[in-house]
């Protein structure tokens, strides 16, 4: 690469899990916002926003000339598609810039009805070869999110995907999932229930990661590996950890990534603010190697805070004190994390409000 040519700065896409988070991210310089409306996106309902809040965020982002994407990435039932399209039409008239979708059928329908609306292919499709990108391009998509697996996010691999005519997007911060996104049915195998929903979807398959977004996160729980002879090894966590690719930002942008995305519609506004602020600075100084390192270290600490949140998440799901300590121990043993844990614990209002809601949902089905 010719050092004289500056790296093209990727756009920064951030979660708008609440109006507060959107306001904070806006102040810190986010380019694109994404949010889903309750019942229609892959998030537990406690972390979703209703239409009024979405429209408020939409107004705010439009006023400042930013973009907003509507997340419609569940695998809907056939009879839900007309209602989904009606919702998209309504939001299109309100001014959204793109829809994030994952089903080929829905993508085709959206493109057929609203040809001028951009379509962002969701991470749930796990598109990871050129032919697949072409497939979605033919359906009408203009931007594709790459799967959140480390090998897929290698700059050399991404170089091979560039140049098909669809933009490439990737998660800079997120969970590194055990299975390919959208190809994991562990949660619904454990527990799935058809429950009545107060949204337009009428009923939902609670427990299915693909169809509802409420996932039991089996891969984050401890399990035992039983060998053929019957020997048992305890204490395995299937998931590898979290994705934080800050140090790779420059090679990835050089390889052709146009949009970097931050996962976390469930994060409190304060945390979104911090991550967005630092990622913004990192993107702005992309060609400046010296300043990069300093931010990267700070950002990695932040991601560790996210792991603390995950541990809390588990604690609430498992509802057992002992498993809480099992999950929290590795974090507490590190001094930096100790401080971050304390910080997290110091925001009880958020924990009470949102996690309690989530816990209620879990109670409904966790018989």
């Amino acid at each position, binding site marked *: 690469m010719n050092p004289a040519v500056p790296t093209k700065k990727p756009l920064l896409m951030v979660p708008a899990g609440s109006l507060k988070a959107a306001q904070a991210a806006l102040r810190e310089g986010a380019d694109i916002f994404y949010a889903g409306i309750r019942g229609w996106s892959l998030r537990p309902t406690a972390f979703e926003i209703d239409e009024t809040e979405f429209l408020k965020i939409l107004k705010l982002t439009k006023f400042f000339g930013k973009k907003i994407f509507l997340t419609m990435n569940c*695998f*809907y*039932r*056939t009879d839900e*598609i007309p209602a989904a399209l009606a919702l998209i039409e309504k939001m299109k008239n309100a001014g959204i810039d793109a829809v994030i979708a*994952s*089903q*080929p*059928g*829905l993508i*085709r*329908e959206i493109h057929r009805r609203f040809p001028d609306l951009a379509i962002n292919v969701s991470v749930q499709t*796990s*598109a*990871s*070869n*050129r*032919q*697949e*990108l*072409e*497939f*979605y391009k033919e*359906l009408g998509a203009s931007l594709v999110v790459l*799967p959140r697996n480390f*090998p*897929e996010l290698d700059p050399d*691999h991404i170089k*091979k*995907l560039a140049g098909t005519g669809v933009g490439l997007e990737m998660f800079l911060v997120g969970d590194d999932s*055990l*299975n*390919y996104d*959208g*190809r*994991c*049915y*562990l949660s*619904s*195998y*454990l*527990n*799935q*229930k058809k429950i009545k929903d107060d949204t337009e979807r009428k009923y939902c*398959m609670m*427990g*299915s990661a*693909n*169809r509802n977004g409420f996932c039991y996160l*089996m891969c984050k729980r*401890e*399990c*035992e*590996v*039983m060998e*053929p002879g019957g020997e*048992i*090894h305890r204490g*395995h966590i*299937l998931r590898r950890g979290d994705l934080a690719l800050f140090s790779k930002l420059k090679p990835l942008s050089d390889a052709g990534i146009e949009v970097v995305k931050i996962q976390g519609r469930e994060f409190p506004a304060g945390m979104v603010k911090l991550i967005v602020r630092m990622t913004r600075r990192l993107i702005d100084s992309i060609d400046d190697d010296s300043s990069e390192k300093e931010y990267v270290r700070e950002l990695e600490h932040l991601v560790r805070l996210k792991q603390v949140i995950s541990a809390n998440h588990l604690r609430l799901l498992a509802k057992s004190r002992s498993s809480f300590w099992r999950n929290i121990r590795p974090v507490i043993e590190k001094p930096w994390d100790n401080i971050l844990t304390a910080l997290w614990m110091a925001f009880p209002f958020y924990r009470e409000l949102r996690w309690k809601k989530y816990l209620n949902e879990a109670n409904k089905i966790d018989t």
Partner: protein
Amino acid sequence: MANFELSTSVFTLSEIQRTDISPFDSVYLGDPFCRDYSKNLGENREDLKKAVELLRSNDKKVYVSSYSVPRNDDLDAAERLLSWCEELKVDAVEIHNFGTLRMAKNRHPGLKLFVGYLANVYTEPTVMKLKVFGASRIMGNYELSMEELETIKNNCNIDVELLIHGKMILGISETCLLKRRLEHKEDDCMDLCRRDFHLVSSKMFLRTFGRVTMSGKDVCMIEHLPEVIRRGFKVFRIESFAENRDYAGNVGRIYRKALEEATGGKDFNPYNYLPELQKISRSNLCNGYYFATSGQEYVTAGQRS
């Protein structure tokens, strides 16, 4: 000629040679989950040719499963497999990836294409789109209930294949869990997945097959065969690749007999077969997602009616 089709899947030539394939009408060849699986029929032309000849001589239909999650570097291998299939004139190719599907449609228009369960087919518009790409049979996502599958089958006028017995795939990862667990650093595969590794937690019992995680329980639909047939399903699969060598033959024979009885209008009593199936499967039974429940639940015929 029976008015149903019973199939199974086999990964290597030696597995076909030692499996009793007589109860089946068709066989899916090749491991769609891992390209490193040794002697994988999908990677080995000579073995594939021999397997096709063997099945043809037994008057079986031959389908080939292509690799389900190809990255960009795997596309050449997918293309190679498609050309072998065309050359060997196999009856159909099962495809789990839309990229491979597009390639098959554009470069090998003569091939008959099936869409597999890992392609995440959930709705009718998706199926209609896949039909444009040449799909003539689909295996809907395992999470779909029987009602949803029936609606898709009727409204889209397409063959829908059902898993009636065997373990479900509950996820595919890009790395091998077994290699990772044993910190196996060499490139060559030790075929760890051929041994019985299980994942056990307080709530679940799973079988791990290297890159895929499978249900610990076997899906068993013998009790519900009358309902399955009433809903008009005609194509059935028995998954037996992670089992011992007698599994496919034994289960296949039971289901062939049961299906012949149930479709032939004879008296069909599932309880003649259920105890034997329970004995064959080394774990409990479940119904998968067919009745909109958790995947690991078992619903009896009495609870359905």
